[in-house]
Structure formats: structure tokens, C-alpha cells
């Protein structure tokens, strides 16, 4: 049995699942200042009588997200080495920053080592300032991590937490690596405190099953690994909801997922049955990062969105100025239209009618309401089209990829959230596709948290002309022979991902996808001196296999 817990802003939902069967669900109010107490209280209501039946606890927590929102992050000393390129001064926006003078080039060649004196100066200044978390990032560290490790070694054990850029992600993008590393370092101390409190609480109740944290990419990681990479637990809410819908209404092919709330509609896409990921990562605290995440777009269109008349049409959203008129609000909203049409049974129907008359005094309220919801569905449709266009226009670099790009072609729309059922027929008309409003969707997030399996991504960069391979995620930098080829590269990366997965507690053989494959001859002086191989592979986000039963 698995417990899934999704902590939101005001409430936490929890479910106990036996395979895919929902055994229990519960909701508690959350005190963000004492998060672990709320979580333990919720756990107490869900733990099966026979504790040995509990296999795992999956937790989607707002701890890190809150720390960011409230600005209660720990101070970090950032040590950055940029080398040639864009003036790096802008990267000093995350607190105290020291720039070093070494350089590594695009192929991972060391151009110049950083000056020891500068490292010592930075260390002394950080110690004096009472900084205990340090982030170290060099440009191209995913090609060659030597300088990041050198700087870390040089600091020794003087600082409690050291985060290195290459360990966070094997993807390119130096500024994102800097911000991700900063975030990781800034979250580490409080994440460790949180982990300790939860573990004490569990131990106190005699629960010794593994505890996993939900990530933004629709996967999980064990607590032990999350304490090294707490940044991965940020923004897991949308991922819980997407994975919940996958559990409740998933299927093959492409689909659109809409989570319609009071203020916004969150849009996600399923491609070939699985959720679509961001190409790099999400923006956190305004900063672009390499934190792997599901691709979600939030449109300012909700049940309580403001509605105004502009150029003879409705202007819906992007803001909410209060409750709908039928519940005592000041202006008309789409929710009022749903009430007028009898699709939603809340508040005062008379006031809802009045709301429609404000928008169109001459027309019958039912007509106005229908037109408003048609428009509402149309705006959501526009946002979905824009998102699909954006995904289609992601850069490609080969002739084959350009000629064979596939546009996402949804076959279904899955809708959750308060107004989901009320809007079903309007969305069906707009999209010309069947709309599914799954049952139990109020606990979709907790179910998503429970059913989600672990994800791993790793990258490999081999340069046989230089005789070196780099797998940044495991700090691997080793020599290879000139004959090192694609087959060996794939085998190596396969093995690395399996090892990480096993270490994280996966027992069955994982299914690994190679999502990027580039092989190129290195030609110098009209002859081939070796090969460059670039690989990216993952265990993709998905649902853990269950024995029998269904929801």
C-alpha cells in the first residue's frame, strides 16, 4: 500500500492506495509554519492498521516553494567562473558572489586554472560573513567538472553545504545552472531540518517504509537523495495534478489536460500517453533554472475571472477581483453564467441573472450566459493552440528533425477543477474532441503523488578525439579509447541510469528512453581524429505498475 500526500496552500490531501484502489482519503488544514506537524497529523489518519503493509509514502510538499515565496532562503556564497562570453556580472543577483578567473571551453578543454588566491579570499570572506551554504558553477562544467571539483576540494570541510553545478544537471545553459545551484544551496539547510522532523515523526509511530518526495517533472526521489538535491522538490504541485489525471484518465495518444480553477486554467499536454516536459526547466523565483519540470502553462482564465465588454465582445480575465456575483461579488464572472444555465448550483440564481444583464441588458440572461461560456471555452482553446504552436517551434538542429517534426494532435481533453463538469459541453464544442471529467478528481493530486514512480535523467558527452567521457550527474570524468563508439556510450549511460535507479530504491529493471542522440566525426586537417557523442536518456515520468484493481 502507498500513501500519497499533496500539500497545498491551505489544505493537505492524502490518500491510501492499495494497488490502484482508493482505500482512504482525508483532508487537513495546513499550518505552513509547522508543515511537518500537519503532514504527520494527516499520515495518522491514513496509515493502515497493519503498518507492515505500507510500502512507501509519497509526499508532494510546499516546503521549498514556500521558502522561496516567503523569501526565507538561507544565504549562499556563489563562486562563479565564466570564462570568455557574455559579461557575467548579472549573475551576481543571488547574494554574495565571487568570480574566478579560470576558463573551460566549449569542448571541455581547460584553458586556464582558477587562481588559488582568489578562492582563498572568497572562502575567508564567506566564513567571516557566516555563510554555510556554497554554490560553485563554472561555464561548461557539464563537459568538464574539474574546476568545480577543484574549487570544492579547495574549500575542504569549512562549509556545511556545497552544491556543484554539474551535479544538478547535465544540460547546457550556464545562467540556468548558476540559478539552479544557488537555489539548491539556499534550500539545503531547511530541507535537512524538515527531513529530520518527518523522519522523527515516522520513527515515533514505528513507520520505517521509504519516504519519497515528488518532483516537478512528474517523478519522485527518495528523501535521502532529495537532501542532496532539494531544488528538485520545488513546484511539485502541478506535477501531482498531472500525474493524478494520468492515473484517473490516462490513455494512449495525445491529450490536453485542463485544470480550471477560480483565477487560472493550468494547461498541460500528454504526448503519446505521457506528460510533456519543459526543454530546460522551470522559472523559480523569477530565475530560469535547469530543474526538470512538466511543461505547464497557466492562462488567466478561471471561473471567477473578471468579465468586461470590449469592442462588442467579452474580455475575460486575466484577473480575479473577488467571488462571483452570485456569491456576493461585485462583477459578473463565468461562474455566474454557469449558475444561470443551471450547470452549477451555488449562490443566488437571481444575482447570477443580474450579472448577465450587466453584460448585455437587452438580451435574455440565458443567451448572454451561453455566449460568455462559448467565449470562455474559445479563449482556453486559443491558449492551448498557442502552447501547441510553441512546442512545435522548439529549435531543432538537423535536416531530418526539421523535416519530420510532429505536431501534437490531441484526441481527448481531460478537465479537472471546480467548473470542470459545468464546462464539459462548451469545451467539447470548442475542441471538437471528447471531454473527460474524471471521478475522484478532488483528490487527483494526492492520487498522482501516490501513483508516481521515480524518474532519472542523465547525459553523456564523449569526445574520443580527446579521449574523455563526461557524465556530469555522477561526477564521472574518465578516459576512453579512440574507438569508443555509440554502442558503448549507450551501454554506459544505460548502466549509469540503472545504478542511480537502484540506489534510489527501484527494484525492477527500468525502461530507459534515449531522448537525444548526436554523433559527429571530429575532422582535423582533412582526416577524422575521433568522434563526439552526445546522449541524453531518462526514465520518463509515468505511473508505477500496480497489481490488479482499478480506480
Amino acid at each position: 500500500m502507498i500513501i500519497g500526500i499533496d500539500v497545498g496552500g491551505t489544505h493537505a490531501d492524502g490518500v491510501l492506495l492499495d494497488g490502484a484502489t482508493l482505500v482512504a482519503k482525508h483532508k487537513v488544514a495546513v499550518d505552513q509554519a509547522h508543515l511537518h506537524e500537519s503532514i504527520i497529523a494527516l499520515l495518522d489518519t491514513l496509515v493502515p492498521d497493519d503498518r507492515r503493509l505500507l510500502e512507501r509514502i509519497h509526499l508532494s510538499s510546499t516546503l521549498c516553494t514556500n521558502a522561496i515565496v516567503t523569501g526565507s532562503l538561507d544565504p549562499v556564497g556563489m563562486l562563479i567562473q565564466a570564462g570568455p562570453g557574455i559579461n557575467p556580472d548579472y549573475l551576481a543577483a543571488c547574494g554574495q558572489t565571487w568570480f574566478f578567473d579560470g576558463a573551460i571551453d566549449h569542448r571541455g578543454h581547460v584553458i586556464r586554472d582558477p587562481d588559488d588566491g582568489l578562492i582563498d579570499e572568497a572562502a575567508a570572506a564567506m566564513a567571516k560573513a557566516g555563510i554555510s551554504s556554497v554554490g560553485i558553477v563554472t561555464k561548461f562544467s557539464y563537459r568538464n567538472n574539474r574546476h568545480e571539483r577543484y574549487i570544492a576540494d579547495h574549500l575542504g570541510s569549512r562549509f556545511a553545504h556545497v552544491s556543484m553545478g554539474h551535479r544538478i544537471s547535465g544540460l547546457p545553459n550556464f545562467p540556468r545552472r548558476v540559478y539552479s545551484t544557488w537555489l539548491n544551496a539556499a534550500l539545503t539547510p531547511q530541507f535537512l531540518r524538515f527531513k529530520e522532523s518527518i523522519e522523527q515523526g515516522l520513527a515515533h509511530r514505528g513507520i520505517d517504509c521509504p519516504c519519497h518526495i515528488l518532483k516537478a517533472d512528474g517523478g519522485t526521489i527518495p528523501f535521502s537523495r532529495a537532501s542532496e538535491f532539494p531544488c528538485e522538490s520545488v513546484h511539485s504541485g502541478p506535477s501531482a495534478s498531472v500525474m493524478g489525471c494520468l492515473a484517473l484518465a490516462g490513455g494512449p495518444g495525445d491529450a490536453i489536460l485542463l485544470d480550471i480553477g477560480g483565477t487560472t486554467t493550468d494547461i498541460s499536454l500528454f504526448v503519446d500517453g505521457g506528460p510533456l516536459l519543459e526543454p530546460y526547466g522551470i522559472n523559480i523565483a523569477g530565475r530560469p533554472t535547469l530543474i526538470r519540470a512538466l511543461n505547464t502553462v497557466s492562462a488567466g482564465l478561471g471561473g471567477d475571472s473578471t468579465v468586461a465588454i470590449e469592442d462588442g465582445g467579452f474580455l475575460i480575465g486575466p484577473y480575479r477581483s473577488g467571488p462571483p456575483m452570485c456569491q456576493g461579488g461585485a462583477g459578473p464572472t463565468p461562474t455566474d453564467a454557469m449558475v444561470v444555465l443551471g450547470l452549477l448550483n451555488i449562490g443566488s440564481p437571481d444575482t447570477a441573472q443580474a450579472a448577465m444583464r450587466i453584460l448585455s441588458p437587452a438580451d435574455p440572461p440565458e443567451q448572454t450566459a451561453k455566449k460568455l461560456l462559448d467565449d470562455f471555452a474559445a479563449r482556453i482553446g486559443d491558449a492551448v493552440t498557442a502552447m501547441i504552436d510553441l512546442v512545435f517551434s522548439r529549435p531543432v538542429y538537423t535536416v531530418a528533425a526539421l523535416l519530420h517534426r510532429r505536431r501534437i494532435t490531441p484526441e481527448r481533453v481531460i478537465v479537472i477543477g471546480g467548473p470542470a463538469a459545468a464546462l464539459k459541453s462548451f469545451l467539447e464544442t470548442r475542441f471538437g474532441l471528447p471531454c473527460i471529467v474524471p471521478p475522484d478528481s478532488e483528490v487527483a493530486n494526492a492520487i498522482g503523488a501516490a501513483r508516481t514512480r521515480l524518474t532519472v535523467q542523465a547525459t553523456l558527452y564523449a569526445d574520443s578525439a580527446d579521449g574523455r567521457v563526461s557524465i556530469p550527474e555522477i561526477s564521472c570524468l574518465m578516459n576512453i579509447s579512440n574507438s569508443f563508439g555509440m554502442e558503448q556510450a549507450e551501454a554506459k549511460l544505460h548502466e549509469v541510469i540503472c545504478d542511480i535507479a537502484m540506489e534510489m530504491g527501484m527494484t525492477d529493471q527500468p525502461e530507459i528512453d534515449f531522448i537525444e542522440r548526436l554523433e559527429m566525426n571530429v575532422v582535423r586537417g582533412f582526416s577524422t581524429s575521433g568522434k563526439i557523442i552526445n546522449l541524453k536518456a531518462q526514465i520518463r515520468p509515468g505511473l508505477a505498475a500496480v497489481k490488479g484493481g482499478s480506480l
Partner: protein
Amino acid sequence: MNPFMPRAQHRTALILFPAFDWCISPTHPEREERLLYTRDQLLEEGLEDIDNIVFFNPELASHADIDRVHLCAPSSRKLLTESHLISAGGTLRAARAVMDKEAEKAFAIVRPPGHHAMQTVFGDRGFCIVNIEAVMVEYIRRHYGVRKVAIVDTDCHHGDGTQDIYWNDPDTLFISLHQDGRTLFPGSGFLRESGGPSADGYTINLPLPPNTSEEGFDTVMERVVMPILDEFKPELIINSAGQDNHYSDPITNMNFTAQGYARLNQRLNPDICVLEGGYSIEGALPYTNLGIILAMAGMDYSHVREPDYDPARFRQPEDMNRYIDAICDKALEVFANRGRSKNEVLKKKVIREQKSIFYDTTGFHVDEGRQFHLCPECPGFTEVTATSPRARIHAFSVPFNACPDCQKSARKLFDAAKPASQTITALQDRVADIYETK
């Protein structure tokens, strides 16, 4: 605006398409790997996240876009691969980005290059089959009604293809800065090559001595290129941004730098850049491309320096400075005298020019004759006869700025021309946007 990322002052579109699966041959300089390190540098710099820098995929140019510019034998369909259409399509995407105001400036970082492709095309010349700048310029003229365009070619090799295509067009100012043709392929680009009978003085060649450095390029930009542009007042400035003047380029002998290329582009302030050559793929291209992008975008490029950059290496001897100054004087004179000879040549009605074009990739010659049918109202149309060992072109080409009479005359001659075996008989009318063969 994101306070955590730098912001481009000028909204700049990048069409970055390294075509990792295309090459002329595996060990040819124009090979798959050519833009690998450039792409790696640009992605690592985080350009995709910089406010006001936008990336677009290229589209495929149509064969009609190609036939508007070139006379291909046997045909554009037979000569071009999809990669050529994508490279040309990359420039079209750049053009649309600027003309539709999606961006203020655009840079097509695409391959293969194009500036050695002439009006007639029988195969690959100097790594080029399609003149991607010319395809773009005629596309812009066709769809956006632009007339006066300046193309500044900063590739180390003379842009002989672009020169050939715009030879007789006074609405296209073509300026080429390159290593002296006595020392480098294609062996042309001398000061005396100054344009056809209707456009004398609108082709400006600046053959620079080997080892010309930042100083020399600065002088030429300051003394010649910028004043001429100020006077010509183009509606659009295009930079054929070859990067093989770099000191580390393996097939040229110049001494230029990433800082120099960035400064040149800052000064030139082009609307659109199109990558041409550049074969120092590790030591130069990642830095020169980045420098050009930052300069276009109006961003700080002071940190873009090659790992082994040493300013002391780039000082020019005094006699080289004097030599370059003399070239500048002569080039200014060419431009000052532009159009002066037109009245004189008009008396002759038709002017004939003959040349031999060498196709270096497979090694054959084409004999080409061009008859410029002159007109007091417009640049006139051109009759082209070109013969390669395997095919022949006989064509009538009407420029975009031709008058209705010249349009009619060309049609009449085309209709009267007898089709011959092994010969492409063609009418290329850019006013009506027609390409007909028989």
C-alpha cells in the same frame, strides 16, 4: 522583463540551424561538425533565455524563391538538396522576422553558405550552390516592396556570386571586404570591378592585404563603408557575415578577431546578418558568432575573447596601414564616380561582357556571355548565354526594377528563341515574378 537575465537592447531573431546531418563530404571543411561548437557556446551562454532574443527554426525555401534569382542547369529541383532549401529558407525566416517586425534584427546562422553562387548555376562553387542573400533580397523585394538594399560582404573570400547577381543593379549597393584576390580563391574582387553598364560604381571591392587586422578593418569601415552607406541611404543593410578573416582560420591568411567582428557589426548596424564562410570551427566561430550576435542585440561584448587572444598580436605595420589607406581612397573614388558613364554607354544600346567561371568543387569551366540591353528608364534586361561541358543556358533576365518596355522586349526575345537540345531556354521576369523555360 526578467531582472535576473540581461536584456537585448534591440530585439534580435536568431535562426540557428547547424544541419548536423549534412556535409559536402565527410572531411570537407563544410561538414556536419562546422557549427557544433558555435551551437554549444550559444546554448551555454543562455541566449535562449535572454530578454529580446528570439530563436526561430528555418523554413524551406520554395523552388520559385530560387528561380527568382538563379538560372539553374539542369534545374533548381535537380541541383538542390533539402539542405540548400533549408539554408535559403533560414534567410527567408530571418527576413520575415525583420519585415514583419517580430524583431528589429535577425541573424541566419545557417549552412551551407551561398555568396559564391552566381546568377547561372551549374553546380557547387566555393561550397555554394544557392546565393542565400540574393534569394532573401529578391524575396524581400517581391513581398515587401523594398527597393534600395546594401549588402556588405565581410567574408574573407570575395563575394563574387553576389557581385555577379547584382552587377547591373544600381538599387543594390554591394561592398565586399576580402583578402586580396591575388592570394586567395576565387581570385577576383579588384577595385576595377565596379559594376555593369547601368550600375557602375555600385559594386565596391576592398581587396585587403594578407594579415589585415582589427586596425585595417576599422579603417575601411570608418573611411569607406560607413560614409558610402550614409550617402546611398539603403532601406535595408545586410551583412554577409563570413567569419574566415579570423586569425585562426585554416584556409585564409588574415588576422581579424571576435572583438573586431563584433565592433564591425556594431558600427555597420545591419538589419540582417547571414552567415557565410568561416572554418576555424573551434577557435573562432563560437566567439565570432557570439560577438556578432551581442553587437547586433546592442549588448556588452567586451568579454567575448578567444582563449588565446592577445591584443599585442594584432598591431599592423605602418606600411600596411598606408597601403590600406590608398585602397580606401580609390574605393571612394569609384563610388564618387558612380553612374557617370551611363549616358555614354546608353548610346550603344547593348553592351556585351564575356567571362569564364570556374567550378572548383568538381573542377570545370563555364563560358558565359551577357548582353546588357540598356534602357534610359531602367537598368534594362540581360540576355545570358552560358555553356558548361554538359549543359547550356540561354536566358532573358528582367530585374525587379525594369520598366514595362524592357519587360515586353525580353518576353518577345524569349518567345522568338528556338529551343535547343541540352539547353535551358528561360525567361526570368522578376517584375511579374515569372520563371519559364522551354
